[in-house]
């Protein structure tokens, strides 16, 4: 089991001149500490227009800063929205390659397609097309990275032959992932040989079956890249405190804030009936996770909040469900003061991480 940190970069109102600056620099301080403590990855999402919920619209810049300030932690660029109205695929390939070079080959490349009308409508993108454009992007990106020159005639874009530069530092290219929220996307990931970057927060039984399906299908995959990235990651919340009750209370303050912010968003499914969006996306999953019946301690199943013993117990269950990595959200709306976030990270590293010291190496690159 490996552990990472995961950033939406949630910025609470009221927005003063320093608010976004302070939140960004709090995140960077957390990443520096996570690197020192042995966390394996830092992920940053790409979102647009999502007031308070996520101000992470240029994650490649944030991740470059992370890479410059750390030594070992891998930088997860994800998910990058693979919709041409958001990002031209050439620009995605170029930015990723630069980030990989500047980080000395620490890039993990996450792909996805957005699930909100708030974002897709804002860019004038057609929600019916996003599955196809995502598929097209993940097939061309490895070619852009590995071929000396690349030309293409496709559905969402075409281009004459050009040298797409620079090339990534990792050879043949960085590991590729896809965000899994809609039912069946884990199979899409497996069929293409991509890592499954799960965005579920809880519910062991449902996840266990998804992981089984993924592992089975990937055995006969036709990889879009030069190698298969068989890994399953999930996202969770982390608040670790010596006192279980305090840990749960503060953790639930964070999850509740996150849940309420997510509820403001307008999922595609709610306003645009489409086969392309069979679920509401992140929102109902967050809601059900945070609102799911808790154990005797009142904390929902699967959430990594509480004292070290409770968190160890939750992670063991994720491990037995077949998950390779957990990436943690550390805060929402700055609900938890920065010093407490840092202390939670330190306690987790001291008391929890050693229990999951690597038994079987997890592949992190294509070599």
């Amino acid at each position, binding site marked *: 089991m490996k552990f990472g940190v995961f950033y939406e970069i949630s910025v609470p109102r009221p927005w003063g001149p320093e608010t976004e600056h302070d939140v960004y620099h709090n995140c960077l301080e957390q990443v520096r500490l996570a690197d020192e403590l042995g966390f394996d990855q830092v992920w940053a999402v790409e979102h647009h227009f999502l007031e*308070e919920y996520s101000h992470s619209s240029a994650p490649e810049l944030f991740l470059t800063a992370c890479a410059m300030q750390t030594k070992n932690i891998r930088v997860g660029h994800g998910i990058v929205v693979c919709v041409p109205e958001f990002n031209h695929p050439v620009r995605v390939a170029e930015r990723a390659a630069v980030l990989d070079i500047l980080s000395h080959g620490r890039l993990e490349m996450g792909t996805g397609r957005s699930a909100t009308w708030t974002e897709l409508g804002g860019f004038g993108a057609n929600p019916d097309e996003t599955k196809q454009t995502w598929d097209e992007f993940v097939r061309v990106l490895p070619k852009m990275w590995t071929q000396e020159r690349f030309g293409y005639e496709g559905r969402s874009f075409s281009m004459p032959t050009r040298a797409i530069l620079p090339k990534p530092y990792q050879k043949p290219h960085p590991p590729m992932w896809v965000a899994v929220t809609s039912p069946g996307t884990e199979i899409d990931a497996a069929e293409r040989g991509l890592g499954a970057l799960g965005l579920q927060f809880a519910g062991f039984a449902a996840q266990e079956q998804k992981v089984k399906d993924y592992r089975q299908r990937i055995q006969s995959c036709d990889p879009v890249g030069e190698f298969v990235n068989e890994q399953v990651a999930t996202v969770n919340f982390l608040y670790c405190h010596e006192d279980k009750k305090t840990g749960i209370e503060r953790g639930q303050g964070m999850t509740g804030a996150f849940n*309420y912010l997510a509820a403001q968003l307008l999922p595609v*499914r709610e*306003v645009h*009936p489409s086969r392309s969006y*069979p679920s509401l996306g992140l929102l109902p999953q967050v809601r059900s996770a945070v609102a799911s019946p808790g154990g005797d301690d009142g904390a929902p199943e699967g959430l990594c909040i509480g004292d070290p013993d409770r968190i160890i117990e939750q992670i063991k269950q994720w491990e037995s469900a077949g998950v390779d990595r957990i990436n943690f959200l550390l805060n929402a709306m700055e609900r938890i003061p920065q010093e407490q976030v840092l202390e939670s990270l330190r306690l987790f590293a001291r008391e929890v991480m050693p229990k999951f010291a690597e038994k079987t190496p997890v592949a992190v690159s294509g070599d």
Partner: protein
Amino acid sequence: MVFSGTLDIARHLDLASSMPSLKTEALEIPNVEMVAAFFEIDDGDMEGLLPPALHPTIPPTVQFFGMKVTEGPLGAFSFAQVRVGCRAGVRPRGYTTLCFCDSAEASTALSERWGFPVQPGEVIVQRNYDRVQLVAEADGRRVLSVELMDPLPINGGDVQYTASVNLAKASHDGDEKPWLVQVDPDYAVRRADRARPTLHLFDAEAWAAEGVIPVYPITGSYTVSDMTLPALRYLMDPAKNAFAGTVSL
């Protein structure tokens, strides 16, 4: 600091229905033709369009619904409804500003049993080969005209309607006052089309929706379904956040 509604419900009380009882039995209506058209609206006063129990989505939306019923326990009727898209806590909902209906029998049932604020009016739901029309008239004056052009068939399972929240006067546990009544019908959709909507006319004042200014079309749909109007399950105190003010019936 998530947005909360700031609407003074006194603005809507005159038009709110009075419900003699909250013990409503479910009612199935077959072969309902339904038009829905969603638009983004100007965000200048998005909190002011909703009572404090609710909060707006980002972006805020207005939702136009039309229904044509040709058979069933309430007889034939046509019905139109305007809602402001919203959240009750974390749940997706639509706050009804006003409805028009061309049948006294249906109006009484929808008003007294499910709390819809209904006024008499003429409603046209018309599906042609190349378009679907929703038109509403009140006092001989057109107050809504929206069209879905070139509708394309989609899977009925892809259509999802969120629950309505209706301001109504009712008594619960001896507490007689205005409540927000949640109505979440079930739809067994047999046919569905989708198209981009075009708004020709919307008289916001006539719909008690002053401040609702549609600015950008999202999507429209047309369905044929068997609809079940449900037994009521939840009420909300309009003045309290839905987390604190929701009552289970």
